[in-house]
């Protein structure tokens, strides 16, 4: 009671003084977590993985990922310093020898990351870091061969750097070509030769892979085998990838070569319906990831899950009883490592956190297309044509999923997901006939179309103008972007908006879109 009495006699200003330090730290702009330790989420829990992904369009074959126990038993990746890959004709003198003299340098140390900026910077480093040095797509021999660049039209920086792969130095004399970084598919060499990270990349990955298979003289069986591992989905109706395999080596190689820059047949997708490489700038605001909206994106943890899964861990998924590596569930869980790109190790949660932070921090470059009288007219046409319903400002997407032709939305999906219950009639192949297919396409954002292309989920149109060309709906149309290897012409159907606009209005609409 005495203490209480004594306390009550203290002046109020003294109490106020006690609060000041808290206020001072609280208002600090340094971003230093004075009063809390950064809590890195544990993302691969059995509970979280259960319904994070949408079911397959054929739900009996929805992906079953590895367990939490399996995942966290994988060793964490050690992140070494990487070095740029030059076109052999542009390589600085003595560079190759110099690389072999370098010691391994571990560059990711989470204990040194304090501020938000630290994490973002570390995230960029990891974004560029290849997770594979086994030669998943290309290897040292390929990138040291000048024909590699000329035969596939590889984009290079003005310094002659091929920015889609890196040299990983894992020790003195241990110089490996690194594949499968995030940057591989999400880096774009712009028309002005600048490099734009996070954009729809222009890595001609499938052409590069075809070059690798051809120059290495891989047998028909080998080509079929790797193609099956990448895209096999015998459970889908008609098994189009099974038919592709049966068509033989040359035909498969032609299918790889048919995929244009800006699209990439990554694992679980297809080279018959190749997905456009997604633009990551602004991805923070998107509710679904993948063209089919496979991964829900409700928070940073979901982004971390997506990165973990997509950096090749989905090779270990089971689709019903099917696994594309030919694994059985017994083999998967017998404790022995599965040595295949991306399946024998994993990013730590801290590494994933850093990448997600970096991806969230990506910003678009300054748009050279400034608003004009023409674009302002296009803005009105954009509203009049009802584009705003799906491509709703300010994100220029309503963030919803539209069912593809042939997919009937299950009743329970209406409550679980954001469904825009109407098909715009684009090619259903990707979402109906692949391991990653959900039966939906997400409504894409139009932000940044000026630095992107080719367009549509399957990259079938090279330019925005092509989208409004009524000729594309005819069977005798030659797609300006992706054209399947086994046809000469093909109608690019669906999304038939703005087709009746006169030339002037079309021009105005495109002018407006380029300002976004």
């Amino acid at each position, binding site marked *: 009671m005495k203490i209480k009495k004594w306390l009550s006699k203290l002046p109020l200003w003294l109490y106020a003084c006690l609060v000041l330090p808290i206020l001072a730290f609280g208002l600090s702009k340094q971003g230093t977590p004075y009063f809390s330790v950064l809590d890195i989420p544990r993302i691969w829990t059995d509970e979280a993985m259960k319904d994070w992904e949408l079911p397959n369009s054929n739900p009996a074959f929805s992906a079953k990922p590895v367990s939490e126990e399996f995942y966290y038993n994988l060793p964490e990746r050690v992140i070494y310093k990487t070095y740029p890959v030059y076109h052999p004709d542009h390589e600085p003198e003595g560079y190759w020898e110099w690389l072999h003299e370098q010691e391994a340098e571990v560059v990711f140390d989470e204990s040194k990351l304090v501020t938000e900026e630290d994490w973002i910077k570390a995230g960029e480093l990891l974004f560029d870091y290849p997770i594979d040095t086994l030669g998943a797509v290309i290897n040292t021999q390929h990138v040291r061969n000048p024909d590699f660049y000329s035969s596939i039209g590889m984009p290079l920086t003005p310094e002659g750097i091929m920015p889609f792969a890196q040299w990983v130095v894992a020790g003195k004399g241990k110089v490996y070509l690194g594949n499968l970084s995030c940057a591989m598919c999400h880096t774009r060499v712009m028309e002005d030769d600048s490099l734009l990270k996070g954009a729809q990349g222009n890595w001609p990955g499938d052409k590069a892979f075809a070059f690798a298979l051809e120059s290495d003289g891989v047998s028909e069986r080998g080509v079929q085998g790797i193609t099956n591992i990448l895209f096999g989905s015998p459970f889908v109706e008609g098994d189009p990838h099974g038919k592709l395999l049966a068509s033989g080596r040359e035909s498969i190689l032609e299918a790889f070569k048919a995929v244009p820059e800006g699209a990439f047949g990554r694992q679980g997708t297809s080279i018959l319906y190749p997905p456009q490489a997604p633009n990551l700038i602004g991805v923070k605001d998107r509710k679904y990831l993948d063209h089919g909206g496979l991964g829900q994106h409700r928070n940073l943890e979901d982004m971390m899950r997506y990165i973990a899964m997509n950096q090749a861990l989905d090779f270990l998924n089971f689709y019903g009883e099917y696994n594309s590596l030919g694994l059985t569930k017994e083999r998967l869980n017998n404790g022995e490592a599965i040595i295949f790109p991306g399946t024998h190790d994993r990013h730590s949660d801290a590494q994933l956190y850093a990448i997600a932070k970096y991806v969230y921090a990506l910003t678009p470059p300054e748009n050279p297309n400034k608003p004009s009288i023409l674009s302002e007219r296009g803005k009105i046409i954009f*509203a009049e044509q*009802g584009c*705003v*319903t799906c491509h*709703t400002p300010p994100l220029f997407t309503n963030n919803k999923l539209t069912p593809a032709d042939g997919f009937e939305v299950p009743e329970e999906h209406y409550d679980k997901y954001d*469904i825009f219950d109407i098909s715009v009639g684009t090619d259903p192949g990707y979402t109906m006939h692949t391991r990653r297919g959900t039966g939906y396409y997400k409504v894409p954002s139009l932000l940044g179309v000026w630095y992107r292309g080719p367009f549509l989920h399957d990259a079938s149109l090279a330019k925005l103008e092509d989208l409004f060309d009524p000729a594309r709906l005819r069977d005798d149309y030659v797609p300006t972007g992706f054209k399947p290897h086994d046809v000469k012409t093909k109608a690019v159907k669906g999304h038939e*908006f703005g087709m009746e606009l006169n030339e002037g209005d079309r021009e105005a609409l495109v002018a407006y879109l380029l300002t976004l």
Partner: protein
Amino acid sequence: MDIGYLDIVVAPWRSLRNRCVRCENFNYLSNKFDFRSRLLIVMLLFFLLAPILLFAQSIKPENPIQFKIKNAGITVDGTISDWEIMVDFDSKKLDQSSIRGKANPESIQTGIKLRDKHLHGREYFHIQKFPFISLESKSFQSKGKNTFVGIFELQIRDVKREVEIPFTLSQTGKQQKFKGEFVIDRLDFGLGERSLVLSDEVRVIIEF
């Protein structure tokens, strides 16, 4: 006993009494009333129903229901062309007047076919589950010469709400022409969701 014309009108059950066991109940009732009483009932029923039978005619107006909604700053004009209305309106007997209407949202047109299709879907009118929009008057008030305000119950989807509709009447002989305009909040009726570009308010114009 012969069954005459009047009997068929006044006591149709009598002609059926031998065909159905349940008719016994009717027979009992019919025996309770003599011919005069039955005639009286018929007359009463006639006078009660006559106004409806004679005046509350269902008509399919020529003009569609119009609506306007702002989308990204642009006013979108839409119509619902398939609708019908039953009118029994006497400006001198407002308390006995009624207006009832029914519209088919499947006939909605906004100038973009895919948008119309979307409006049919569950996010908006969900026509598979709710094939009609209905409007039924509750009361009327005069607001001056040929100007009225009606309180109506409007049902869209499974939501019923009272709306106040000011309208005008121009009458030429027996021909009546009504024109009303009102505003609803589409979210009140579960039509779509909140949007940064699509206005919540929809202006509806009805003319018949």
